[in-house]
């Protein structure tokens, strides 16, 4: 197990290095520089370049870049008055993390319930309804949901604030918009897993012991069906990150996603690269945790040593 984890961390570092090199390379290749403004003279550009260490040879810049990264230094933003990228990210991470977390928790709970109910009532109208909701959730982009909510609940009914950041009232619509995809994916996955487990012989054994229906469903079926759910955590986090870029824009939330989109429009490369790396690290760490977690909660893997292919 320890060897396996060490190997996985090795992969993580290689992947991150590749991403970092790629982002660095892109910065060199990209057309345009933040100092291409016509107002600046050649001398001024030179001074600025020197200030940002952009006049060093490229390999030296690369070493600086990677070295800085290891210290949590992702360079300085071109647009936000030269503030360090890491500062800006830390400053903005709160709202993004909050709605992301709320969406994951709410989406997972609702999704699990929907999936369990659909499986227990399979081939009834309840099942069909739950799965139709799931198809809608998977198909309809989160920004369409966000738009619908914003227009009807925010603009027309005025039940919730249309946008901006504040107390819990401000979280509801953006978190729900993000959660829709989570609900749909988890519900579908859980239904399949539940049906699979419910068809297993050990469920009959459990029933034959005289256990109550609730015991059979929760202790034997749901527990086992939930184990593979952790595998979709990785894609789910990417889904939330993707969604947050758009949702934060629509609801004007001062989070990382909103900042990222702004830095793309303004071609603020250090900011783009910093956020990109942050997203990559987040994703890699999540899939690493998922893999380890899977080994912990499934005794077949934990003690068997080998992994299920």
């Amino acid at each position, binding site marked *: 197990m320890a060897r396996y984890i060490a190997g996985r961390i090795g*992969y*993580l570092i*290689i*992947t991150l290095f*590749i*991403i970092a090199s*790629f*982002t660095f390379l*892109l910065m060199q*290749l*990209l*057309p345009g520089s933040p100092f291409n403004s016509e107002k600046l003279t050649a001398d001024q550009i030179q001074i600025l370049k020197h200030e940002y260490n952009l006049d060093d040879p490229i390999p030296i810049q690369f070493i600086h870049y990677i070295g800085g990264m290891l210290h949590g230094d992702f360079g300085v933003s071109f647009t936000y008055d030269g503030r360090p990228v890491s500062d800006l990210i830390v400053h903005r991470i709160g709202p993004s993390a909050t709605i992301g977390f709320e969406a994951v928790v709410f989406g997972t709970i609702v999704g699990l319930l929907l999936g369990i109910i659909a499986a227990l009532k399979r081939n009834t109208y309840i099942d069909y309804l739950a799965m139709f909701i799931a*198809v*809608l959730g*998977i*198909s*309809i*982009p989160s*920004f*369409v949901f966000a*738009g619908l909510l*914003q*227009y009807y609940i925010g*603009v027309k009914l005025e039940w919730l604030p*249309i946008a901006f950041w504040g107390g819990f009232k401000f979280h509801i619509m953006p978190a729900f918009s993000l959660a829709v995809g989570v609900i749909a994916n988890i519900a579908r996955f859980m239904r399949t897993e539940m049906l699979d487990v419910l068809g297993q012989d050990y469920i009959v054994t459990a029933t034959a012991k005289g256990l109550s229906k609730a015991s059979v469903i929760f202790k034997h079926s749901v527990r086992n069906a939930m184990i593979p759910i952790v595998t979709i955590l990785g894609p789910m986090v*990417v889904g939330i*990150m*993707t969604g947050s*870029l*758009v949702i934060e*824009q*629509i609801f004007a939330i001062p989070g990382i996603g909103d900042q*990222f*989109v702004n830095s*793309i*429009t303004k*071609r603020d490369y250090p900011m*783009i690269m910093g956020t*990109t790396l942050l*997203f*990559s690290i987040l*994703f*890699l760490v999540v*899939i690493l945790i998922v893999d380890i977690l899977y080994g912990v909660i499934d005794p077949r893997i934990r003690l068997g040593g080998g992994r299920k292919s």
Partner: protein
Amino acid sequence: MSVVNDNITLDMFQPAQISADESDRISAPSIGFWKDAWLRLRKNKAAVVGLFFIVLIVIMAIVAPMLSKYGIDDQDVVNRQNLYPRIPGLEWLGFDGKDSTGMDTYELNGVKQNFWFGTDELGRDIWVRVWAGTRISLIIALIASIGDCLIGVAYGGISAYYGGLVDNVMQRVIEILAGIPNLVLIILFILWLGGGMTSIILALIISGWIGMARIVRGQVLKLKNQEFVLASRTLGSSDQRIIWKHLIPNVLGQIIITLMFTIPGAIFFEAFLSFIGLGIPAPAASLGSLNQAGFENLQIYPYMALFPALILSILMISFNLLADGLRDAFDPRMRK
């Protein structure tokens, strides 16, 4: 429970040879793989509805812009700016050309004809723009998905076919690439290549082929060692027959299913890119850029977001329903 039955006569106790052949007959004729899949797909109402809407939207995307007298960039800020949708016969649904205050935007501007989906702030016909945008989105999704498919099948096939060291190296490469979130890969590529259709397609292919490669490799490896292939070989089938009768139908089914799930994914990403300012540049339209423009005007002119969002959603739902249906239809375990 003794039976006193007058119907039982002595002659009924003569030995009688009853034919057992009846019960041995196979009741249904055998049906080929593709025909069987098609029959099952046809029974799936949701998939049929999905297929119907896909066909309808594709036809509209091809035909509607050609039949309209307006081009996608025909502006007229003087005479027909921000006209609300007016569809004869559907006035009761709110498509009566009146704005939120009840003013008839057509009367105000003295416009006689109907704009079914309304016009935008530059006076362009949204009907034309929506269908032309749908066309662009569909083309992007289709080419990207086919690209995914070609690279993925080649990569996965080679990896599984050669096995050993080749497979090992190729899988390590995939493992590292899979560690990079799609989102990041696509954004970096478009920043590098610049906006536009080609770079969007390339970015989608670069981030999308890995899934297909993994599925193809998995399928080929699984099938290579499966007992029915061995059984068929034992019965003297030629390699040709095994490949065409066993491997291709099974792998192809999986490829088609994956392709069907990739298309809506690509449509979504195109729309998403427009939202973060990396989409198709103006004045060309895609479903994404139309949605984005609509959302910017959501509070003042909600109709501008309505139709692009509606078509985008219907398209995504239809592809997902069809893909679900295909998955069930191709799954041999579902065969009754």
